């Protein structure tokens, strides 16, 4: 229904700007309904301006800036309607170390309500997990699971 969609859209938009500013340490981001008259069919535009930079089309953003912007949007959707679990497969791949730190710090706000499974090659990301599953292929073509439970995160 129209009001249901507008309510959702408005809330996601609010979270998106907020999360963008958290991940980028400033700047601003917007979601724009292309056709405000036809809310139930309108496409949605994304506007993003990293701190200290001029506003331009998102195509000109760097690979890492785009990934971080997408993460802000996905988590904004997640805030409005959480899922009991969330699986992220190597979403930290394009991020530099300081952006990975910001991303994993943001993740802490969400783990109360959802389980997160993160596939990663990055040591910083691994360091903030409660549990680590190592997957190996000692025998070619055959996957095996090894569990490593970190004692530290029991708080």
């Amino acid at each position, binding site marked *: 229904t129209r009001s249901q*969609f507008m*309510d*959702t*859209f408005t809330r*996601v938009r609010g979270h998106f700007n907020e999360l963008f500013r958290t991940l980028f340490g400033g700047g601003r981001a917007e979601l724009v309904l*292309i056709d405000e008259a036809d809310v139930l069919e*309108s*496409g*949605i*535009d*994304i506007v993003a301006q990293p701190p200290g930079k001029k506003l331009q089309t998102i195509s000109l953003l760097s690979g890492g800036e*785009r*990934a971080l*912007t*997408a993460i802000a*949007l*996905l988590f904004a*959707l*997640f805030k*409005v*309607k959480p*899922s*009991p*679990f*969330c*699986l*992220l*497969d*190597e*979403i930290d791949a*394009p991020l530099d170390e300081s952006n990975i730190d910001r991303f994993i710090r943001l*993740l802490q706000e969400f*783990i109360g309500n959802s*389980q*997160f*499974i*993160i*596939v*990663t090659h990055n040591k910083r*990301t*691994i360091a*903030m*997990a*409660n*549990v*680590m*599953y*190592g*997957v*190996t*292929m000692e*025998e*070619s*073509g*055959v*996957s*095996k*699971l090894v*569990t490593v439970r970190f004692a530290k*995160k029991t708080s």
Partner: protein
Amino acid sequence: MYFKRLEVFGFKSFPEKTDFIFESGITAIVGPNGCGKTNIADAIRWALGEQSALALRGSRMEDIIFNGSADRKPLGMAEVSLTMSNPENFLPLEYSEVTITRRMFRSGESHYFINRTPCRLKDISELFMDTGIGTQAYSIIEQGKVDLVLSSKPDDRRYLFEEAA
């Protein structure tokens, strides 16, 4: 409600029965290229009812059955079970714990189970209908696909908002 366990048997690179326990908080899955990490994500999606072989990187659904290796023959069947808690009957069933099982043979013949009782795929879809589980496109972000929400057309990205509504 939360996921408790995933059992994988004969699915892609897992010829041996493998148990994956879900923990609260953050679970990291690590390992070298090609060892099977994304295959675990594929197993979860398949258990939740994914019908497209392409979405699971295959060309036919049969591709998700262990196809053999240098030292092992192919298997004839893949089976994945996903167990979740069911507090306050979040899912419309009397059990406090619900296990959904999907099994498929090379012929394409498929069997479905809820708590080990045979059922139809339809029953599993209806079970999850109002929970958002299995359909929320933003709860599984596939490898290399993070950029999609930005590179997709304005009309195409609507569905994410419709799902959150």
